[in-house]
């Protein structure tokens, strides 16, 4: 691989990895056994940091126990928007050592890292110390006992507040926002605990205070699942039928009350076979309709999706990916349902596949997906994943995309209505039940323009070509990918790996290597020509994704979109992709070439 370089080429690539400038950010992890309050602590810290003017990202991990098991939150804060986890953590606040080894891989520590823990928690597990992290044991629980309603996690939060330079005022606001509903006593106790924690002096560490970007704008605190739900509502979805499944259920739980407020509805189906067919029914009835699921549920929807394709009934399926195959690792992230989404229908069944590029982009991609599905009377599968869906972001509010979502509807006056009429753009007007003069029967059997079942070769070819052409000929504009930077190195990626790739590109550029990122939002149909144009002058092409077999890499080859010299960087879940690892991989490739 031969990356193009900026004006100041450096020849000592060997050490480049280490010298790469990194985004200035602070990463904090909080762990604890069930009931230790690790998650609440994290949520309060996220809230406080956002009030202090920072951006933040928070992901979560938990053991197998349904309740009472160990859990961890992984957070990152910066003065600019931040969408993914870093290579390492600056601080670990450990409420106890209960099964903390389970999280050792997820919370890499090094000699610059600080561990804050309770002095009564016992011996620190060796894996945490092996890279030289500094440990400060404090009398958190002992002190907590000494103050009324005191809880060790609030004292720990106080310590973090001091380390991160948060004010008492910010902490008080955060407590009120997070615990307000639980009453004044709870709030007062928490504040007392935090303030006591802020009195601890934790010496001998690096400065963890960020410069706040002064901004008047209000921030949003949103999860990817909420963002997908919001985008769907913006796109016009007013009917949802679904069956609960981790990690997609929160989309449904957020949408249920909000759909109702907007005059829509949510139906809890008996299974996924029902949910996909229910939304086909809802959409046939004229209401933009959607479901949300994860791998096992998407598997069960495959037959229904084929029906929607053949009957040209628009539906949107949000698939929040988790570790596969089969039941796999339900609580952890992986981008391994791409194959199923692209190819998992029997027969030649053209449809749309999209993926949000980060938590904030869930709003946009979800709205766009509904819009495309409605306009094209097509199936749209949206591939989010656990790392987007169940993580939270503190971010600038998303812009309004404001797509024209309306589907082409037949009106009552139509003569000799033909549901599947050939038209210039291959989209036919769809009659909505209730409209006089345009009755028809939708069908999953092959049919002619009118919709009458037909097994004739001519009808089959005509209607297959129609269904394919309406997607192929549509002008998707600029949204098919987020592109930035100039060649040299090209990173092609999709979905949740996009944010990591952005950071990889920043680091490479900062070290003088021109880097272009092509983050695919519309995976099918693929904009092959534009993609080829964007990478043709790049000396190295790396396809980055979070699965084992390189599903995107193979798909891009299937479409003859990338040259033979492209290389694949594919790693399975459940650990997140780390920008540093990818940088290292790329530099090693560059060195091998020299």
């Amino acid at each position, binding site marked *: 691989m031969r990356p193009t370089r900026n004006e100041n080429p450096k020849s000592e690539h060997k050490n480049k990895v280490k010298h790469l400038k990194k985004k200035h950010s602070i990463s904090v992890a909080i762990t604890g056994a069930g009931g230790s309050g690790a998650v609440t602590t994290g949520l309060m810290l996220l*809230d406080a940091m*956002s*009030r202090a003017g920072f951006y933040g990202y928070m992901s979560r991990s938990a053991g197998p126990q349904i309740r009472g098991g160990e859990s961890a939150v992984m957070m990152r804060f910066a003065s600019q928007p931040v969408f993914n986890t870093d290579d390492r953590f600056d601080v670990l606040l450990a409420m106890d050592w209960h099964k903390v080894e389970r999280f050792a891989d997820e919370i890499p520590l090094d000699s610059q890292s600080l561990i804050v823990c309770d002095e009564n928690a016992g011996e620190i597990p060796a894996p945490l110390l092996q890279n030289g992290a500094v440990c400060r044991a404090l009398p958190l629980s002992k002190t907590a006992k000494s103050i009324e309603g005191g809880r060790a996690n609030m004292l720990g939060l106080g310590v973090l507040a001091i380390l991160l330079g948060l004010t008492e005022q910010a902490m008080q606001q955060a407590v009120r*926002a997070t615990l307000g509903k639980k009453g004044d006593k709870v709030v007062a106790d928490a504040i007392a605990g935090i303030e006591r924690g802020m009195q601890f002096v934790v010496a001998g560490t690096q400065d963890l205070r960020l410069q706040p970007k002064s901004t008047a704008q*209000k*921030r*949003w*605190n*949103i999860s990817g699942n*909420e963002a997908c739900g*919001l985008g769907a*509502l*913006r796109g016009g979805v007013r*009917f949802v*039928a679904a069956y609960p499944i981790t990690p997609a259920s929160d989309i449904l739980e957020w949408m249920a009350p909000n759909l*109702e*407020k*907007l*005059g829509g*509805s*949510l*139906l809890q*189906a*008996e*299974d996924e*076979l*029902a*949910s996909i*067919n*229910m*939304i*086909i*029914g*809802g959409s*046939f*009835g*004229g*209401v933009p*309709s959607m479901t949300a699921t994860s791998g096992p549920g998407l598997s069960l929807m495959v037959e*229904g999706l084929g*029906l929607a394709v053949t*009957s040209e009934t628009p539906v949107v399926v949000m698939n929040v990916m988790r570790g596969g195959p089969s039941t796999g690792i339900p609580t952890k992230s992986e981008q391994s349902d791409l194959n199923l989404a692209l190819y998992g229908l029997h027969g030649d069944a053209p449809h749309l596949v999209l993926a949000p590029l980060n938590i904030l982009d869930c709003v946009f991609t979800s709205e766009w997906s509904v819009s495309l599905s409605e306009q094209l009377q097509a199936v749209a599968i949206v591939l989010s994943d656990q790392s987007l869906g169940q993580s939270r972001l*503190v971010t600038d*509010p998303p812009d309004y995309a404001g797509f024209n979502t309306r589907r082409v509807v037949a009106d009552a006056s139509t003569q000799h209505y033909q549901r599947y009429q050939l038209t210039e753009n291959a989209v036919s007007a769809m*009659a*909505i*039940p*209730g*409209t*006089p003069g*345009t*009755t*028809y*029967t*939708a*069908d*999953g*059997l092959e049919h002619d323009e009118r919709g*009458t*079942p037909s097994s004739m070769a001519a009808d089959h070819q005509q209607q297959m070509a129609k269904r394919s052409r309406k997607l192929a000929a549509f002008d998707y504009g600029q949204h098919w990918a987020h592109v930035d930077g100039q060649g040299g190195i090209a990173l092609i990626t999709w979905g949740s790996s996009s944010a990591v790739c952005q950071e990889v590109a920043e680091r490479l550029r900062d070290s003088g290597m021109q880097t272009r990122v092509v983050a695919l939002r519309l995976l099918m149909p693929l904009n092959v020509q534009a993609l080829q144009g964007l990478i043709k002058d790049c000396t190295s092409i790396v396809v980055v994704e979070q699965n084992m077999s390189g599903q995107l890499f193979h798909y891009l080859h299937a479409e003859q979109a990338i040259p033979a010299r492209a290389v694949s960087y594919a790693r399975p879940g459940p650990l997140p992709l780390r920008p540093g690892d990818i940088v290292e991989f790329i530099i090693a490739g560059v060195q091998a070439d020299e």
Partner: protein
Amino acid sequence: MNEMIKPKDYKTDIKPIWCPGCGDFATLSALTKTLAFMQLKKEQVSIISGIGCSSRLPAYIDSYGFHGVHGRALALASGLKAARPTQTVIAVGGDGDGFSIGGNHFMHACRRNMDITYIVMDNHVYGMTKGQPSPTTEPDWVSKLTPHGSGIRPFQPLAIALSSGAGFVARGFAGDPSGLAKLIFEGLRHQGFSFIQVLSPCPTFRPEQKLWKQQVQPWPFDTTDDPVLAASRIHADEGLTTGLIYQRELPVWQPGAEASDTLENIEQGFLV
């Protein structure tokens, strides 16, 4: 538009694929008769089906329709009714479609009690796939797939409907089209889920069903609204009686309130 609608107005020009003598013709004409009797406009009615000989019916009625995939008619119908409550939604299909692959949706549609009428043309066989036993087939009926018969006691559609919470349980017979039309009319009038099992002979694969003409008897009781009584009657019944067996008003599930808020307001919830 002010003229009376006649049964033949609901006919399409598509020729049914059905064999001569197939019982499904009777359901088709009972249905068009009832729609005409009720003067339902074509565009008010949606007929939803799965896959099977019987499931081809929607294409033969000039109304809105959906010929979906095997076993999922009730799911599709439920989604449609939820999203568009003003439609008269009728689901139709066969015993294989409704009780074998579609059995789960059958139970849950009964419980959910949306205002849908479900008509199953039960011929105790898979007609379309050329003669395998269905859930309602007698255990000793021999087919290529079951050289000694299935050996399994038949599925009891009425008992399942009742136990699942349906509020309208009836059985009709293709050999008595006007009785059938009456049941369909009652079903369409009933608020909530109405289930009508139609004994619909398949002369091609079950020629012995021609005897039904002699065997079918009226249900020997009045319609009851007592589920306990209905349960014991249905459990004692042998399957060849017709009538409206059980009818009871039960809470109908139908979502769709007026909008009470705006998206902008909802979005305020994300502000820190």
